[in-house]
């Protein structure tokens, strides 16, 4: 069925990107992209949940009857999210204080459920795991870029507090691009989320048109 792992990754990262193409997971996309670091952290947490839930669902797919598949998928995703929540609270507490409030949001993110339904429920274990990984990476990339756009224009910094997320070695990532107080406040307020996401969508469309690709209103279609 699957025409190769390269396609799975190309799909997840660009062609069928969860945020930029499928337009799923808008709630965490808007809420968690006030800075690049927040977007990256939320993306990584979602990546972990998607890869593990896709893996589990694909390996159990022969035991899940179509009639109860949705509640079972939600159960598996919610269980993975709760696992992440408890583990982070216990062992990555500083990060948890930043992201903790938003971890439960992953359950309400349609993207893990969408990938479970269109991919993991039908495909073998390894491609499904890769799909979760690729979609998660695409999600992380989109959130980080949107976060960076909002952070640079809003606060004048880039990757502030990244050392909190990734460890002290990443202190060098923390940049100040504008003097304090010079940012456009709206960028970090909710409207900024819509503006940055919209801009990024437009840029992706432009690149696709330049490349001569037909523009389709892509839904969550399966990789076949």
């Amino acid at each position, binding site marked *: 069925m699957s025409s190769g792992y390269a396609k799975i990754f190309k799909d997840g990262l660009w062609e069928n990107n969860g945020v930029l193409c499928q337009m799923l997971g808008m709630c965490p996309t808007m809420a968690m992209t*006030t800075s690049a670091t927040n977007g990256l952290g939320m993306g990584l947490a979602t990546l972990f949940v998607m890869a593990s839930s896709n893996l589990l669902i694909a390996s159990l797919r022969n*035991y*899940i*009857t179509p*009639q*109860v598949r949705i*509640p*079972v998928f939600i*159960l*598996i995703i919610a*269980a993975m999210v*709760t*696992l992440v929540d*408890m*583990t982070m*609270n*216990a*062992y990555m*507490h500083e990060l948890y*204080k930043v992201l903790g409030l938003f971890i439960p949001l992953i359950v309400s993110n349609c993207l893990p459920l969408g990938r479970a339904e269109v991919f993991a429920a039908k495909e073998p274990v390894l491609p499904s795991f890769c799909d979760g990984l690729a979609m998660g990476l695409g999600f992380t990339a989109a959130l980080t870029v949107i976060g960076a756009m909002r952070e640079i224009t*809003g*606060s004048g910094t880039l990757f502030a507090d990244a050392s909190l997320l990734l460890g002290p070695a990443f202190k060098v990532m923390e940049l100040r691009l504008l003097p304090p107080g010079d*940012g456009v*406040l709206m960028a*970090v*307020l909710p409207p900024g989320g819509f503006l940055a996401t919209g801009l990024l969508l437009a840029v992706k469309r432009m690149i696709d048109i330049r490349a001569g690709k037909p523009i389709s209103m892509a839904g969550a279609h399966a990789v076949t």
Partner: protein
Amino acid sequence: MMPQRPVVHALILGIFCLVFGVILATTDLFTHDTIKLRAVEDLQNSLTLVIPASIHDNNPVSDAVVIKDGGRDVTVYRAMKGGTVTGAAYAIEGSGYGGPITLMLGVDPEGKILGVRATAFHETPGLGDRIDAAKSDWITRFTGLWLGHPPADKWKVKKDGGVFDQFAGATITPRGVVAAVKNGLEFFARHKADILEGRR
């Protein structure tokens, strides 16, 4: 494929619920104590911000008393030196622009403020979040004040006829914090004897 009878679906769903329930319970078992420890650490960290280390030789977390105030219980952490209470700290709550603002208030036995810090809030970044000590020194200006200095009717932001600065573009947040601190001091005044003597 298995026979498509409702009971089969119910069983499948039930088994999945059971298995994941067990997995989550196991994780909870392993992380529960660590999470509790982290919460205590958080509490201790916020207490050290509002009670100077020099005035106590005890662990305020273990010398806490629960005071009944109206219908609610307030846990008061008491700083002690040589057996006498030298300060008390407790969480207070004000209403901000983005929902409740939780603060930790530390007072000395006379009701004079030792320190105030915002511990949890959702105020607008760049405007209301200046109540955070990391972003502005505004919150530190409460230190050394008490009810009566300034007088009770001046415990307001300047816009409302009081003495406290509001922020440019944000009045609701400082207004909520000033009211919360005032309420916190009044709470201490009401229960001073209980807090100092450790009665419940």
